[in-house]
């Protein structure tokens, strides 16, 4: 509520604090229970584009404080080096996405981060085998960022600053590092394509190996895609190039097998797109189209990968499965297969090994397509359940328990939640309504079909947009059932909004400040509706809620294939932009998601009932309580 004019301000009205203050801990993300907390940061760390990573949630590496000094120095150095790497570290430190910048703040924040959560870390190290690693990667990021520029002609001071880090590496490793980088430089001069990738892959691995003693244990970093970043970094000669090809934020990790796997894959796919919009450099973007055939041929060769997960990954990559619920269900069913076929290797406990396996599969899925928030929450749930398995259970019992847990999650949180949402939503549909929907949200489709079954008289307006044109699928399904529909593109939304009585939208996630994170174009529709005073109803299951806060659509998003924009399918006559993807003066931006502020939303329909957007943090809080009890 905006502040009202109140001349004699009251002395002490008994104002009740609600929302975040009523729970026993002010930061609901800080939990006293380290076990539970680990799955928390884990899931968030593995869904980079979906969830921003809050460093406060992530236990820092198990260093003593002496190591924080190099971090600080390195961070200061890093901040001096290039804006992009700098912005990366700020992004790490400020989870709400606000990229305020001052080097001092960065270093201070990064300094305080490890020290503040050190005690927690001690416990974490005991528990181990939980993937939590991003501050480790934070460290590695900084170190990797520093080392290549350290070798260039300009940044000799970086070398000095990164010396404390380098002290940890042995002489042999450093020599190997230098040779590799020299080789990479030479190779990159020769050819800007695959060679740097390969060599830089090896460089990356040596880098990582060098960095390994810096970070103590093999904590798995679930975020994938290694080589292209450092490769580009090494290959880039001029300052400008180096700035342009800033290291990919999520590429560093310490796990050997991961690096190798990424390298192997890096040769095949994930060549970083060179021509990218400056503002979105913090998001991954790759050349599309090359991966699928290669991955298909490799289907029988990938030992560590379970075929079900591989299949799901391929389906994501090709776009066969899209939409929050569908992706989540497909992934969970693949995990069920994994659990079914799982057998504990000797000398390993089921909890830890299973978690490690799941993490590796998740990183593969991320390589195919960045995680959606729904998937992130589901993965968090699965890891939570694995962690909570009693040690005393036999393997088959544990497997059965896990499978039934996953089944229950799918049933309760997705399928039954949808029926509850439909039940609430149809009460809002009256005879004579004109309902507008955008894209193809599964929840809204179910609502419309059910309302039609209840013999309500309404008509539907489907708004669609390029390049995905998802609305056409929804349109077909509605028409098949006999609902009268109108179809238009998003350009016409202000033209037709005057005849609309209600707007139903779907969501990929709803964030804690009530912001709806959904398919790109949703914000546009919601704002126009709000300008016309048409109520906007968002249908979203509660498991998709997330406790992070996002103020804009930039800090966290997903970039799609730019070629999809340049090419207009089926219309050869207007393909003017075809082939211009690599033009230096033209950058294509294909965003997948956008954030709709809560002011434009009238109500959110969830399986907890119809709530105003301000109640989302309450539900997130209750949800977590429910999970910690379960």
């Amino acid at each position, binding site marked *: *509520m905006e502040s*009202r*004019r*109140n*001349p*004699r301000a*009251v*002395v*002490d*009205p*008994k*104002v*009740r604090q*609600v*929302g975040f203050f009523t729970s026993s801990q002010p930061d609901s993300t800080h939990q006293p229970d380290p076990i539970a907390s680990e799955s928390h940061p884990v899931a968030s760390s593995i869904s980079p584009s979906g969830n921003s990573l809050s460093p406060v949630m992530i236990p820092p590496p198990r260093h003593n404080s002496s190591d924080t000094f190099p971090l600080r120095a390195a961070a200061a150095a890093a901040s001096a080096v290039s804006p992009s790497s700098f912005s990366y570290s700020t992004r790490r430190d400020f989870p709400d996405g606000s990229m305020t910048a001052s080097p001092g703040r960065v270093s201070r924040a990064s300094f305080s981060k490890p020290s503040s959560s050190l005690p927690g870390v001690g416990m974490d190290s005991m528990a181990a085998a939980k993937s939590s690693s991003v501050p480790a990667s934070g460290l590695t990021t900084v170190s990797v960022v520093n080392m290549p520029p350290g070798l260039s002609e300009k940044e000799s001071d970086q070398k000095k600053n990164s010396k404390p880090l380098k002290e940890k590496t042995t002489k042999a490793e450093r020599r190997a590092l230098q040779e590799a980088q020299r080789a990479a430089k030479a190779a990159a001069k020769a050819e800007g394509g695959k060679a740097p990738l390969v060599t830089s892959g090896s460089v990356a691995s040596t880098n990582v190996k060098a960095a390994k003693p810096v970070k103590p244990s093999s904590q798995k970093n679930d975020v994938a895609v290694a080589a292209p970043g450092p490769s580009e970094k090494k290959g880039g000669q001029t300052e400008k190039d180096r700035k342009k090809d800033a290291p990919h934020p999520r590429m560093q990790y310490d796990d050997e097998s991961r690096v190798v796997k990424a390298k192997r894959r890096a040769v095949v796919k994930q060549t970083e797109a060179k021509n990218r919009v400056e503002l979105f450099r913090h998001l991954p973007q790759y050349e599309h189209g090359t991966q699928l055939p290669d991955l298909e041929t490799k289907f029988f060769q990938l030992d560590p990968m379970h075929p079900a997960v591989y299949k799901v990954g391929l389906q994501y990559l090709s776009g066969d499965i899209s939409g929050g619920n569908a992706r989540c269900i497909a992934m969970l069913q693949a995990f069920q297969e994994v659990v079914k076929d799982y057998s504990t290797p000797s000398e390993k406990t089921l909890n830890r090994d299973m978690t490690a396996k799941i993490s590796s599969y998740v990183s593969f899925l991320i390589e195919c397509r960045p995680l959606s928030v729904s998937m992130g929450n589901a993965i968090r749930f699965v890891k939570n359940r694995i962690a909570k398995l009693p040690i005393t259970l036999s393997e088959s019992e544990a497997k059965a328990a896990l499978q039934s847990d996953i089944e229950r999650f799918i049933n309760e949180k997705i399928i039954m939640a949808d029926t509850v949402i439909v039940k609430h939503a149809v009460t*809002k549909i*009256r*005879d*004579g*309504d*004109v309902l507008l929907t955008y894209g193809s949200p599964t929840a809204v489709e179910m609502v419309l079909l059910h309302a039609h079954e209840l013999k309500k008289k309404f008509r539907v307006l489907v708004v669609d947009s390029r390049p995905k044109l998802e609305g056409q699928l929804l349109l077909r399904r509605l028409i098949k059932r006999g609902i009268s529909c109108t179809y238009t593109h998003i350009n016409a939304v202000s033209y037709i909004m*005057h*005849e*609309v*009585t*209600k707007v139903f939208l779907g969501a990929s996630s709803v964030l804690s400040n009530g912001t709806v994170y959904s398919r790109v174009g949703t914000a546009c529709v919601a704002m126009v509706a709000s300008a016309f005073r048409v*109520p906007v*109803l968002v249908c979203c299951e509660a498991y998709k809620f997330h406790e992070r806060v996002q103020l804009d659509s930039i800090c966290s998003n997903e970039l799609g294939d730019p070629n999809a924009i340049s090419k207009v399918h089926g219309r050869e006559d207007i393909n003017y932009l075809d082939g211009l993807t690599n033009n230096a003066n033209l950058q294509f931006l294909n965003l997948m998601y956008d954030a709709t502020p809560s002011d434009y939303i*009238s*109500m959110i329909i969830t399986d*907890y*009932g*119809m*709530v*105003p957007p*301000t*109640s989302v943090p*309450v*539900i997130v809080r*209750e949800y977590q309580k429910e999970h910690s009890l379960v």
Partner: protein
Amino acid sequence: MWRRSASFILDDERRRTSNSPPMADNTTRAPFQNPDAISAYYQTRAAHHGVITSDWLAQAQAAVGGGVSGEENSDSSVSELGKDKSFNVIEEFNGWRKQPDLAEAVAAIRALAAVIRASEASTMMELEIELKKASDTLKSWDKTSISLTAGCDLFIRYVTRTSALEYEDFNSAKSRLLERAEKFGEISCKARKIIAMLSQDFIFDGCTILVHGLSRVVLEILKTAAQNNKLFRVLCTEGRPDGTGVLLSNELSKLDIPVKLLLDSAVAYSMDEVDMVFVGADGVVESGGIINMMGTYQIALVAHSMNKPVYVAAESYKFARLYPLDQKDMAPALRPIEFGVKIPAKVEVEMSARDYTPPQYLTLLFTDLGVLSPSVVSDELIQLYL
């Protein structure tokens, strides 16, 4: 423009089908229902408005239990139905309602607590079923009263939301339930006093308060302020068709509070000299908005555009699980309007007795749970209904 509003189509249909739409519902109602077209709630309100003047109160105190009541003609039919039950919740309800100062929902809550006390069930399930049946009976007595429905629902949720239900011993569980029921009843009874106390800080010397409708809670607030020797003056809207303005001004002048009566249409004209607006609520909905007497939305809009705070005084049992999207999204409650002159037959009259004020026009809610902002209502409801 109004062609696009769904309500236009609804009205159209209604006009086309028959001439007596309100009559249609009545035939489907239970026998002990109010046969009249007028919402029972508003009938009782009208009666109560006449009833709670202080003169009458004085008489009532003297003659409490004497059976003086402003109830409507449904009583006789009600008692017929109740004969077969050994314990009749409706009788209990009516008994409580005879106390003129008691709100309906509170009377219902007390009646439901009595149901638990008098219940002969031997298992928890049976008790819950009994409670549910009693509450349904009470709710059906007047379907348009939001506070009644909300009060009953909240009572049942509150009472059964205890881990005591998992005790093996039924009697201890039942006594725990009874304890909670009594507590809920106590809170609801004392709600007005608590609210009055909380709102004292907001009334400062020399302020001008605009009041709309005749809410007993708001009256309590103003009474308490006067007792605390605060100097303020009150502007009351006329409140057609209920005539609440005249009644309120009577009351306030007895307390020596300077009162000025306004036409309903003179609110914007006088809004400049107003410091704050106080209204009651028939029901508080999940979005944080309120459903109140017709005219509240208008006043809230004017106040909002002139940056005057709008304070709502509502007890917590009025929190309902409704979520209206617009004015027509609620169960209709109609009330005939006397114009004094004859209206030609072809002319329609908007007979709705209440409107919905969205939460963005409200500043604060004074409830017995504390001083809340509108978004907290959903918080409370979620916690209770989760």
